[in-house]
């Protein structure tokens, strides 16, 4: 196995995540896309780790942190979703444009 097969996969996932983030209207779906991106990052980290095999397994440690943070972000994100939904009975981002210009 070569590194690139994983890296390119990661790149693809990341791009998909970006796509989702750009086109999804429902905030929950956007969160899902974000998860895809972070996941791509994880793939990268793990791949590099096993490519470089650092003594302290830095890559894996890093990805653990990433996973944790990602979880936290999901929590925050969903909280915000609820907040917004409570106030406007909808979870669509493109309706949020009170503030512009």
């Amino acid at each position: 196995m070569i590194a690139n097969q994983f890296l390119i996969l990661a790149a693809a996932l990341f791009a998909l995540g970006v796509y989702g983030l750009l086109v999804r209207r429902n905030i929950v779906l956007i969160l899902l896309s974000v998860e895809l991106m972070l996941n791509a990052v994880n793939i990268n980290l793990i791949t590099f780790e096993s490519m470089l095999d650092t003594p302290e397994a830095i890559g894996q440690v890093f990805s653990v942190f990433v996973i944790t943070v990602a979880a936290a972000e999901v929590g925050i994100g969903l909280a915000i979703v609820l907040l917004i939904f409570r106030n406007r009975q909808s979870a669509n981002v493109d309706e949020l444009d009170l503030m512009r210009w």
Partner: protein
Amino acid sequence: MSFGDWISEPVNWVFTLIAVAVLISGFRVVTTNNLVRAALYLVAALAGTAGLFLLLSAEFVAWALVLVYIGAVVVLFLFGIMITRAPTGSDRDLNIERKGWAALLSLALFVVMAWGSIEAFGATEVITAGTATSTEVLGESLLGRFVVPFEVVSFVLLAALIGGITIARRDLSPAEEDERVSV
């Protein structure tokens, strides 16, 4: 190494299978018209990723992924979806119009990234399965050298937790407040 001997390695078949699965489900995540399905596809994608991690001999991370995500996060998602009473059936307008730009953008992004990593790592081998990183090493460095971030990240979670609750909860009227305090 030529594509020939790459494909001749069986592990790469496994990889290919998982990769395809991951890609497809990932694609569905961002395209499906059904919220719940999207969440489930995410599960698939993550599971696939976990598989890949196993291929890369990162058991701990793989299982952590499974636990944290499939166990917690996705459930959280489903809760969120339910609470926001979003239509569980299929739903036409989950996406904004003019997706073209977005597609173009992300495609370009992919091209750039892929090209970059090819440029950089060419045909570098990764250490194949077998020599799994022992969880001990991981624990050592997590609680040793990386103890500060470890503590800090706990605060991240704490903050997310408390803050999330505060933000998400329905505000009680002062009256309710007081009675709850008195109880």
